[in-house]
């Protein structure tokens, strides 16, 4: 068996190298087709994300093409220089390749360890390859194993549960502890910064609709409101909007707080003590910190959220050893299964070899006992089959046990000699 992965990632290649090597969805399909035209017997899956470009290869018989051949293929496809491409590519084979794939699928190899998108990207790459008919038994087993490992890591560790970006921490770690649902909450965005845009993405994912956007520059407010199907409000309606809001995301570039405690006291009077979740993502801050001491106001500034991100990142790192153990266990199981599968033809040959004498003995017996009816013959047939199965059980179990620790070559040699099996089996 030969498995190989050749590619580059953020670990060993800067963005300047990864960018020209990247494939969009259609290019990935074309590349798989081109690969199958060039190497029809070699299974291939192409994984291309913003952080990695990797070609997973496998061949049940014969050798998989070497790193140079893969580099030449990638360079050809993108019209690049093969030598320059080659020096940034990493080449892993067999166990190293499987462990790498499992680590990638679990996002242990990601730039942000534990980020959840990579599993979907791995699945997408696998499905695209299946669609192009470039996946055989080895890569099927490998990618299904990778998906299984990722699910195990997800269910047995907390590595994916800790959010590490400011908007996701704001919504998941704080917002969802205040509000049960967001579809009936009024979201107000003050300013139109990039962080507001990202936070709105998470809020919309939780069900929030039609955010109100306020900005000193009305055209910017309208642009952001249009993008999120919200409504732009005039800047002088800030107090009114704050009185109506349940969630506030503030990202202005103002040099001093736009909402002081005194101003908030006035707004508070019309709020009727409804809880208010304020994400003050601006530096300098848009809300006077004392507002956070008011009852039912939950005010978080960028420092609070970044501290939570750091805590979560550390928490993810704490789960790494457990996740790595799962990867190693699953890689062991993968290779034990593969080695055991490899002994399948030998078991089949053994079974076939014993079928002929069984048939001969049965025919001899039936000639001697012509008075046997069909039912008796069937019973005798079944008894012989049971005997064969029992005789085969011992060797099969021994092969399975040996396959756990390595290729059971001593045992297979002994079986070949003992039962006169053909060498090719």
């Amino acid at each position, binding site marked *: 068996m030969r498995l190989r992965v050749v590619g580059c990632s953020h670990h060993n290649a800067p963005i300047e190298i990864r960018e020209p090597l990247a494939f969009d969805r259609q290019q990935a399909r074309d590349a798989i087709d081109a690969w199958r035209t060039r190497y029809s017997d070699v299974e291939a899956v192409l994984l291309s994300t913003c952080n990695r470009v990797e070609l997973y290869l496998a061949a049940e018989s014969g050798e998989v093409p070497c790193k140079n051949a893969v580099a030449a293929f990638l360079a050809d496809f993108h019209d690049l220089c093969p030598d320059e491409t080659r020096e940034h590519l990493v080449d892993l084979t067999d166990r190293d390749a499987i462990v790498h794939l499992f680590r990638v699928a679990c996002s242990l190899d990601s730039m942000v360890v534990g980020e959840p998108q990579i599993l979907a990207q791995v699945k997408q790459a696998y499905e695209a390859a299946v669609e192009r008919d470039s996946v055989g038994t080895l890569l099927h087993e490998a990618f299904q194993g990778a998906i299984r490992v990722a699910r195990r890591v997800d*269910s*047995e*560790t*907390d590595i994916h*549960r800790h959010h590490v970006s400011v908007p996701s921490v704001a919504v998941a*770690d*704080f917002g*969802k*502890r*205040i*509000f*049960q*649902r967001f579809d009936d909450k009024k979201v107000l965005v003050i300013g139109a910064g990039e962080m507001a845009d990202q936070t709105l993405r998470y809020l919309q994912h939780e069900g929030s609709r039609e955010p109100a956007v306020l900005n000193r520059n009305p055209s910017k407010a309208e642009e952001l409101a249009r993008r999120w199907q919200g409504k732009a409000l005039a800047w002088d309606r800030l107090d009114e909007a704050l009185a109506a809001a349940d969630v506030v995301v503030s990202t202005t570039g103002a040099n001093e707080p736009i909402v002081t405690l005194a101003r908030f006291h006035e707004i508070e009077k019309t709020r*009727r*003590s*409804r*809880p208010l979740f304020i994400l003050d993502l601006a530096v300098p801050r848009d809300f006077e910190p004392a507002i*956070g001491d008011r*009852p*039912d106001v*939950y005010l*978080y500034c960028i420092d*609070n959220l970044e*501290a*939570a991100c750091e*805590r*979560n990142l550390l*928490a993810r790192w704490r789960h790494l050893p457990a996740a790595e153990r799962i990867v190693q266990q699953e890689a062991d199981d993968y290779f034990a299964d593969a080695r055991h599968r490899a002994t399948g033809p030998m078991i089949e040959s053994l079974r076939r070899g014993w079928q002929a004498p069984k048939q001969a003995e049965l025919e001899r017996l039936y000639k001697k006992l012509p008075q046997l009816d069909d039912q008796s013959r069937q019973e005798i047939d079944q008894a012989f089959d049971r005997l064969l199965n029992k005789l085969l059980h011992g060797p099969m179990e021994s092969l399975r046990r040996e396959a756990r620790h390595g290729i059971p070559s001593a045992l297979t040699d002994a079986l070949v000699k003992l039962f006169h099996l053909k060498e090719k089996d």
Partner: protein
Amino acid sequence: MSGVTTICFAGSYAVALLLELSRLVFRSGARRVVMIGFAAAGLVAHSAFLYYRAVNRPGSPLSIQQEWYLLAAWLLVIVYLYLAACHPRQAFGVFLLPLVLALVGVATFAAAPEPFPRAAASRVWGAVHGTSILLATVVVLFGLVTGLMYLAQAQRLKKKRPPLRGLALPSLEWLSLANGHAITLSVVLVAVGLFSGSILSGLSHGGRMSANDPVVLGTLAMFFWLLAAAAVNRFYRPAQTGRKVAYLTLVSFVFLAVALGLALGLGTSHGGWNQWRQRPPAMEGERR
């Protein structure tokens, strides 16, 4: 079935509580099943215990102070199992199971094991009275749990602390709604309990009401408190904030604890150890 003791189900609930607390220490996929398994096994033993007592002792479980507490615990376990199944990530058990164990403890060590004195004519009103006060107790205890959870969650959020891994609490919005419903429902149940209790008292005392019974007075005080709390919560918007509603439910629990304490400690028509201890020897004989 007669071999089932309070130790059997209290032990099962204690193990379920320990498993709930272990959420803080380690993560396990199997824990939820084992935890629910222990609580369910406890509930089966608990049910068997109550059934055996109901068929082998005079009076319904509602008419015996000890079993009344065990029934309240039994209902809270059902609430716990429902919440554990529907909200597996949230640690309701950490707050509910100690209350269950406390109720079983009160039933075992403090409550009178004899039926309240009653006339045959008051059987129906006795059942209505016992059931409504029992359900009101369970609802107020549930309100206490959600109130405590609210305050814990709100304090963590105010201090910008991250969610406790393994010991997740529901959102403030959910807890606030649950608190509001608990107050409203408990007003209705206590009102029914008081009304049926007054009829029961009239039947038992030949038309005279036992308004000077400290337990009745305690329950009346709780009723007026709950009524005021529900009215304030319903009609006065500034009081509708979750934190204030949480405080209302906590004070409701104090009223409940006082009423139950009076019922346990004093010799009144609501039972109590004093009354049981002071019974003449002839009644002991009757029991046998």
